[in-house]
């Protein structure tokens, strides 16, 4: 008996979400390869440089918004169902949020892909940050709004399950996986208010032509109100995997349940008031608010550093139970030959490196050194592009068998895949960081200029390009391996009663050691709202005071 036998309805909806996620991953990943080859000049004839920006929009939207959101929805359906031991309360509602998210995704995708059709008026080469006054087709904004509304309903679905469970278990602690799901979604509600206001109040009326000018700073600020917390919306599900599944895959038990809860609380209260750290280089925002954002951002290092300790200690517990010894020798006793474990562990190592470049990004004045250079995508390909994406891929090797009742096929390929991803990302990302220090910009089809040359600080410019192209190729090969293994296992895997060992042991220090206040959802939400008000009420009021749409810039269609 595995998940699909115990909870067939949940398995079905989780699989539907994973399917959409993997299709988005395939298309977005292919776009990434073409961009790497185009940018580095290895192949400039696949697309034109103008089409590069359409493709870059597709890469960002399909991977950062679609792949992540659908995978997370599938993961949380699985986690809430198994940890509460109940399927969703109303399947019609569950399927309705899935379809709303999917319809939104299709609308936005059509708007983006329209950019490849010559003469098409449906275009959306505005990148996934869609800063006005550059204007996309209304389909793009309406689609984005539907994706977010669908995700809100998904969160409501999990709260509904929790409340129904609570009625039957009035005195029990919230099971950890449900706890992590609810806190991630609470953070998501707090932060998506910004982008929902931006899209619904400002951008949709403007893209439909009801207003003909727009104040660029206000929507940009609302975007970044959402735009940093969204990275934690991607990251927290990876933490969900690292806290609740990785210890088991290591052969051990979670070191501390309380620490996991504390970490999620800190993310709920600090994720949103940090958005200005994406606007350190913006005119129109006072230095004081930038400083407040920096202090809160750097405080957010704390939950990640705590996670580092708790998760590594849980792995060490596994290794020591498997006979590991010493300060470092135990690392060799970890199951490096298991694809699910290896992928999660390698993702964690990459996250440690991404943490460092993130500190540079976060630290106000030194951020100017790397602002909008290719250092920044170098950073987030380590975090969302590896810590999150590789964890999602690796855990699929463990989840898909539970959801389909079939064993994993092509295990050798599955094992090579995360190592190949790690290698490809090491090449691509280190080169992007160094390119950024040389001043090479991000989001540029042709970083070659006629009036000057870049000078590398470490290495040479041609070697940097070479590493980016090779890295991109290796990542694509790794992605093809992943898709092949999943496709084969999903449709052709051997049916089995127990296709994978899905038992998750209790934490070493369980919820009995965690103070009750950690489960006080209302308290932490109120604190989160208070910190957001401190950070945003004054600057937003200043921007709105002179009129929602002024100082108004004329519309520039893409």
């Amino acid at each position, binding site marked *: 008996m595995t998940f699909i036998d115990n909870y067939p309805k949940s398995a079905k909806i989780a699989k539907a979400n994973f399917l959409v996620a993997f299709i988005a991953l395939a298309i977005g990943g292919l776009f990434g390869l073409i961009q790497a080859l185009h940018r580095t000049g290895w192949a400039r004839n696949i697309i034109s440089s*103008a089409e590069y920006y359409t493709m870059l929009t597709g890469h960002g939207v399909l991977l950062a918004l679609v792949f992540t959101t659908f995978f997370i929805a599938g993961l949380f359906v699985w986690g809430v169902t198994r940890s509460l031991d109940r399927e969703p309360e109303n399947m019609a509602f569950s399927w309705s949020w899935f379809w709303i998210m999917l319809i939104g995704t299709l609308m936005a995708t059509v708007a983006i892909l329209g950019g490849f059709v010559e003469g098409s008026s449906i275009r959306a*080469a505005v990148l996934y940050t869609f800063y006005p006054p550059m204007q996309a087709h209304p389909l793009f904004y309406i689609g984005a709004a539907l994706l977010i509304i669908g995700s809100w309903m998904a969160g409501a679905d999990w709260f509904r399950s929790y409340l129904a469970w609570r009625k039957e278990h009035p005195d029990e602690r919230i099971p950890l996986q449900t706890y992590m799901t609810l806190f991630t979604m609470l953070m998501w509600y707090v932060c998506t208010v910004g982008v929902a206001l931006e899209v619904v109040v400002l951008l949709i009326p403007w893209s439909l032509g009801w207003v003909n000018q727009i104040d660029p700073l206000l929507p*940009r600020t609302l975007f970044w109100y959402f735009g940093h917390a969204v990275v934690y919306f991607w990251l927290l599900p990876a933490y969900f995997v690292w806290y609740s599944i990785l210890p088991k895959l290591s052969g051990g038990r979670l070191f501390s349940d309380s620490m996991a809860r504390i970490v999620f609380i800190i993310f709920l209260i600090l994720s949103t008031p940090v958005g200005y750290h994406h606007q350190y280089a913006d005119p*129109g925002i006072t230095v004081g608010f930038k400083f407040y954002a920096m202090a809160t951002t750097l405080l957010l290092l*704390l939950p990640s550093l705590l996670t580092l300790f708790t998760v590594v200690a849980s792995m060490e517990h596994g290794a020591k139970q498997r006979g590991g010894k010493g300060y470092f020798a135990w690392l060799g006793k970890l199951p490096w030959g298991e694809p699910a474990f290896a992928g999660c562990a390698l993702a964690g190592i990459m996250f440690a490196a991404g943490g460092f470049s993130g500190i540079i990004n976060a630290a106000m004045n030194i951020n100017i050194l790397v*602002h909008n250079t290719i250092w920044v995508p170098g950073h987030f390909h380590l975090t969302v592009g590896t810590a999150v994406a590789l964890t999602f891929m690796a855990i699929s090797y463990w989840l898909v068998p539970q959801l389909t009742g079939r064993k994993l096929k092509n295990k050798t390929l599955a094992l090579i895949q995360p190592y190949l991803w790690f290698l490809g990302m090491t090449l691509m990302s280190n080169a992007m960081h160094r390119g950024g220090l040389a001043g090479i910009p991000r989001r540029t089809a042709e970083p070659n200029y006629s009036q000057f040359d870049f000078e590398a600080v470490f290495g040479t410019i041609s070697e940097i390009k070479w590493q980016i192209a090779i890295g991109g190729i290796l990542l694509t090969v790794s992605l093809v391996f992943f898709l092949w293994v999943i496709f084969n296992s999903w449709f052709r895997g051997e049916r089995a009663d127990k296709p994978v060992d899905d038992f998750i042991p209790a934490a070493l220090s369980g919820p009995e050691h965690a103070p009750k206040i950690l489960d006080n959802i209302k308290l932490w939400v109120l604190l989160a709202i208070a910190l957001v008000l401190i950070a945003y009420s004054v600057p937003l009021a200043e921007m709105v005071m002179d009129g929602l749409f002024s100082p108004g810039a004329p519309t*520039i269609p893409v």
Partner: protein
Amino acid sequence: MHIHRFERFWIGVSLVAIAIFIATVVIGFSVYDLRVIGAEKTVDPQNLQETKFADPGVRKAEPGSEVDYEVYVMSRQFMFNPGTAEPITVPTDAKIRFHITSPDVLHGFEVVGTNLNTMVIPGQVATFTTRFDTPKTYGLLCNEYCGAAHHVMEGRLKVVSKSQFNEKQLVQ
């Protein structure tokens, strides 16, 4: 609550690390004078002809000003004015204040290989002060996506020694 003594120690170490990072930025800000730009007056991006951006370029600062030269740069799809057609020319050993804005979309203003880097947002004026110690010609590029030809938006910033700087070229 059960927290292992090693983990308690690690929490302490983490907080020390965070304090060190914040302290470094504060020291950089106050002792090394490494600043970020803040909020200045807004402008109407559809009426820039009534401002100094109508006649962009390098100007001598008003007498009594805390800087020596003021540089007005108009960033538009897909050029800097000045910067692209002819370089922005400024002297060494002078306090120079840049004012940059855009009449159309967002742009970036990056002086390649330096810490001069700002967003250019329609409706806002990016204002910062700097000083160049040695003569050198720097590359200038737009580092915020601004449209289909974003990648051709570039220029130069030429720093000449104070003695060779020709004030006749200034915008009057």
